[in-house]
């Protein structure tokens, strides 16, 4: 497979949607406006944990300009799950999260919504809604949630344990997963060195720049059209249909351009409310989250507590690991505790291990997916301990990782054997990279860390329509967050032998595209890409049949090469027919040529990365700055290397933010104190250096070109890479993120 040669794949054409995006013409969620459109405002709970005793909307309803008011009563609680390929979405929880029914479970939890003729009127009306609360004690950490006599979020919650566990009475632990191999006790007795530490990471947000926004229009016939910024138009459609008891065929979801998602634009927060409001008002309704609402009431990712114990022989060979991972789920069950358990030891061959992972509900917003959900926190723990192990044994940190790195045929900690994977290759590339040997100033230190992510498969559809002039149209169902239109068009161009500019890629709505799972899980270029290639090959097969018709030979006998149908031996006197010659004859030879494909693929080959980070630390203030950074990753095959590098750089930057300054800060009542970009400190341009990338290509046999997922792996290593660099400068092992200046100075002072 690696000998495949490509014409278009591996080049860097300009994206088709680019001009619209650099000129301001592209329409994002909040850019949609319709005639007679109403504006909605969501009233949110001022308490992190409170029973809702009553909601009086009388005054709000009677205000001039108010056209509709909804409360929890308007959102049915459906006992059903929405299969989403990867993970089922619990529609009951989702409905209760849309508008609180009996209890407000976090500060900012929606309790009512108003649609009015202007945003000002809607805002004033929302203030006129009287909600009576019985305020309850909030649960704001794993410790509080699991303490004896902890307040209980959900009276009926039972721990779903694998293995099953006995729960005595009410609990805030929603789930538990164990993974085990070998004899852990014996593994530790065989070890010469055992390191044990406890790590903590805070709640962090995806931080996409475009807040959630949508417009819904419901007609007199009850059919609804929703324009929304989403990673998954079909998820939105099916979630709205499921929650509101509508046929999926009565809802059309039109994805707008999307201003970032990173997993946070998979759940629905506004769309069902907009549908219900517009149904009541019989006018279109627009709902837009403010940045503050987006922080308080969309889905960040879990805060965690992870205990990690690792043993190794003197030569660095790992003998045993024991780890306990605790993930906050927010207000409803469903943290990435399972993924965390499966990822935490996935980079290394460890003959004896025990992993336990917990899903804990707390009075914070329900977590959503965030780029490799669960894996970065787990990597922070294992990669910090690996670093300490290397230090203790006085071996090179890359060498110790190489010694224990998984290779093809090794079993993943969750069971199955790995196919072709690239961990060893990226480690070797890192050791050989000039960055690894570059000199450092006294105030600087260097850290490395590895990362793993599964990469999803799931369902995708694609349609390629050939035009009479030999150009082609491509429709898929994945919103384009980072250049997937052009990458998919490149695949069509590659297959058909035409220029990528002659392919028009389109993100379809739920009526015009075949069912396609979310833009997420690093699956678009892999799974949807595979569908696109198959659809283009379908076009090619039809073109061969048309050539056969012209030549009056059997279709199977017609070959195809370099954009041309090749005559069989029986018609050796004929000239090959190019696509541009065949296309104008479509009508004569049988009608339109439409290639289609629908696939449901297994998970893509896993992706591995290693990052190298140089950090400079001001010992007087504890302030640090990343001064050099290199990300190396196995991507299978880089279709558009520019956007592949962009994924690696962007993931690294997000991870650096997570490591250094980002965190939700809650007061003792569970109110987020920094719900804005001023104090939720994401990296700005001047915080970062150029981020060097090394693309390693170990072809993934599950994809025709060898593509594997790219987008998620790069956020996994930075937390530990930065912390390890911090240790290299300061000699202090920091186990709690973020490494903000006050925390670092405190650590320096404590260490003397």
């Amino acid at each position, binding site marked *: 497979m690696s000998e495949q040669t490509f014409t278009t794949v591996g080049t860097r054409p300009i994206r088709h949607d680019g001009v619209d995006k650099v000129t301001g013409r592209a329409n994002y969620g909040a850019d949609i406006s319709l005639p007679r459109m109403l504006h909605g405002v969501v009233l949110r709970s001022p308490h992190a944990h409170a029973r809702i005793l009553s909601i009086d909307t009388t005054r709000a309803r009677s205000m001039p300009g108010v056209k509709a008011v909804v409360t929890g009563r308007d959102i049915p609680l459906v006992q059903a799950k929405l299969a989403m390929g*990867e993970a089922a979405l619990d529609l009951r929880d989702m409905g209760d999260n849309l508008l609180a029914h009996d209890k407000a479970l976090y500060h900012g939890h929606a309790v009512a919504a108003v649609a009015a003729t202007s945003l000002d009127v809607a805002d004033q009306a929302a203030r006129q809604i009287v909600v009576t609360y019985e305020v309850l004690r909030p649960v704001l950490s794993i410790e509080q949630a699991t303490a004896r006599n902890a307040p209980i979020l959900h009276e009926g919650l039972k721990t779903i344990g694998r293995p099953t566990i006995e729960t005595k009475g009410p609990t805030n632990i929603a789930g538990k*997963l*164990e993974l085990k191999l070998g004899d852990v006790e014996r593994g530790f007795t065989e070890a010469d060195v055992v390191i044990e530490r406890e790590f903590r990471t805070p709640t962090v947000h995806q931080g996409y720049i475009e807040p959630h926004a949508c417009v819904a229009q419901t007609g007199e016939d009850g059919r609804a059209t929703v324009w929304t910024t989403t990673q998954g138009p079909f998820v939105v459609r099916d979630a709205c249909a499921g929650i509101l008891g509508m046929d999926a065929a009565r809802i059309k979801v039109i994805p707008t351009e999307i201003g970032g998602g990173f997993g946070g634009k998979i759940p629905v927060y506004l769309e069902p409310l907009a549908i219900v409001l517009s149904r009541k008002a019989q006018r279109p309704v627009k709902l837009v989250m403010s940045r503050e609402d987006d922080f308080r009431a969309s889905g960040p990712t879990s805060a965690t507590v992870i205990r990690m114990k690792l043993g190794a022989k003197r030569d660095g060979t790992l003998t045993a690991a024991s780890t306990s991972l605790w993930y906050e789920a927010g207000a409803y069950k469903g943290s990435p505790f399972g993924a965390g358990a499966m990822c935490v030891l996935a980079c290394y061959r460890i003959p004896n291990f025990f992993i336990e992972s917990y899903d804990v509900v707390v009075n914070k917003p329900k977590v959503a997916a965030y780029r490799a959900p669960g894996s970065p926190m787990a990597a922070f723990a294992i990669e910090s301990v690996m670093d300490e192990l290397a230090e203790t044994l006085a071996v090179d940190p890359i060498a110790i990782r190489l010694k224990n790195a998984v290779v093809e045929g090794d079993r993943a900690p969750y069971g199955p054997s790995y196919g072709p994977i690239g961990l060893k290759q990226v480690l070797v590339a890192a050791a050989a990279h000039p960055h690894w040997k570059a000199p450092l100033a006294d105030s600087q230190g260097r850290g490395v860390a590895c990362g793993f992510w599964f990469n999803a498969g799931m369902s995708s559809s694609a349609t390629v329509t050939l035009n009479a002039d030999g150009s082609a149209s491509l429709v898929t169902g994945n919103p384009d967050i980072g250049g997937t239109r052009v990458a998919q068009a490149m695949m069509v161009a590659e297959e058909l032998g035409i220029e990528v500019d002659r392919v028009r890629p389109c993100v379809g709505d739920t009526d015009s595209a075949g069912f396609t799972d979310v833009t997420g899980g690093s699956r678009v270029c892999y799974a949807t890409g595979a569908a696109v290639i198959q659809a283009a090959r379908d076009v090619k097969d039809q073109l061969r049949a048309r050539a056969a018709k012209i030549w009056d030979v059997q279709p199977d006998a017609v070959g195809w090469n370099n954009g041309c149908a090749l005559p069989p031996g029986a018609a050796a006197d004929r000239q090959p027919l190019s696509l541009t010659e065949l296309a104008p004859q479509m009508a004569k030879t049988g009608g339109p040529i439409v290639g289609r494909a629908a696939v449901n693929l297994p998970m893509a080959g896993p992706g591995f990365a290693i990052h190298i980070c140089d950090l400079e630390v001001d010992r007087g203030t504890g302030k640090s700055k990343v001064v050099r950074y290199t990300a190396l990753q196995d991507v299978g095959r880089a279709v558009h290397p520019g956007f592949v590098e962009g994924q690696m750089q962007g993931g690294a930057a997000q991870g650096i933010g997570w490591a250094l300054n980002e965190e939700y800060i809650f007061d003792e009542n569970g109110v987020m104190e920094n719900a804005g970009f001023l104090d939720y400190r994401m990296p700005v341009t001047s915080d970062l250096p150029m981020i060097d990338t090394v693309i390693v290509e170990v072809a993934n046999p599950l994809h025709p070109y060898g593509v594997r997922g790219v987008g998620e792996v790069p956020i996994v290593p930075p937390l530990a890479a930065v912390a390890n660099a911090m240790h290299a400068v300061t000699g202090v092992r920091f186990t709690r993120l973020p490494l903000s200046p006050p925390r670092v100075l405190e650590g320096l002072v404590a260490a003397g």
Partner: protein
Amino acid sequence: MAIVYLPHALNAYTGGRSEVAIDAPRVLELRAALERRFPGIQAELEQMAVAIDGQIHHDADYERVEQRTEVHFVPRVAGGA
């Protein structure tokens, strides 16, 4: 015969058995066979993804499990972007 690896997480049903050979044409029948052997396990297995010779499928009912196939049941994973 497919070799089925039983995850530690399902010990409650398997009594700690870690692998078992099952003769079944497809995952659907394989799960049913496991249910006969370990009553109650099927409902759990239906919640899990299935790895067949290393490839993880989320919807594996009709996947063939041929001679000497390795089958693992693994937790489903959610992804971001």
